């Protein structure tokens, strides 16, 4: 139906590999440990909110 679902073997294989690599780029970033600074920031914002 659409381009990405094409039956052209070369094209779909290339897109498949691009997708696999894109997922890997994203997942590697996703699986990194989230720095504490963000939780600390949320805690600080919450504290500030409670004081108001």
């Amino acid at each position, binding site marked *: 139906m*659409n*381009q990405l679902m094409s039956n*052209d*073997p*070369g*094209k779909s*294989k*290339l*897109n498949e*590999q*691009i*997708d*696999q*690599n*894109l*997922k*890997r*780029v*994203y*997942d*590697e*970033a*996703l*699986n*990194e440990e*989230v*720095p504490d*600074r*963000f*939780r600390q*920031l*949320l805690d600080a*914002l*919450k504290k500030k*909110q409670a004081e108001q």
Partner: protein
Amino acid sequence: MTLRPAGSPRGNPRDEIILYLASMRAFAISLTRNVAAADDLVQDSIVKAWTHIDKFQPGTNMQGWLFTILRNTFYSDRRKRSREVADPEGVYAATLYEKPAHDGKLVFNDFQRAFDQLSPEHREVLILVGASGFSCEQAAQTMGVAVGTVKSRASRARKRLAGLMGMVEGEDVLDGMDANTTAVMGRSGMQAA
């Protein structure tokens, strides 16, 4: 299990922001290709989301809402600075992506080099649609463009990416061979040479 749409919301949506820190950061890294810049971007986006939580409609996709804030912040900062933030020491590239590729063809390091060379707009659409699991409709909403624009931009981005890696659709190594055959032939070719 599911949130009831009517009645009082079960919790404060602000308390849900924490659930999306990792995905916000992954999206920010995809856009900036620089961990320090990504972390600053996430930090700014958290503050904005917290401050403007009244703009969030409970029951809608919070990840999409947060991603919208993040990418709008990114592009607006970028316009203000009007220059690219580079990763002068190559810290990110050096530390994160040293793992060997396991598929013989699209070597991952080559892929990343090509990915880094794309415009942020192209990286954005490919990551949203190709990797983060957003539908074209969700991506369109996040990016503030039409669904057709998402599809055509993604298609152009794929072509550009393939071009940067020296791969053209339907050509050369990908033509009519499966990955294993190509990998084996590539190896034996190298041994013979």
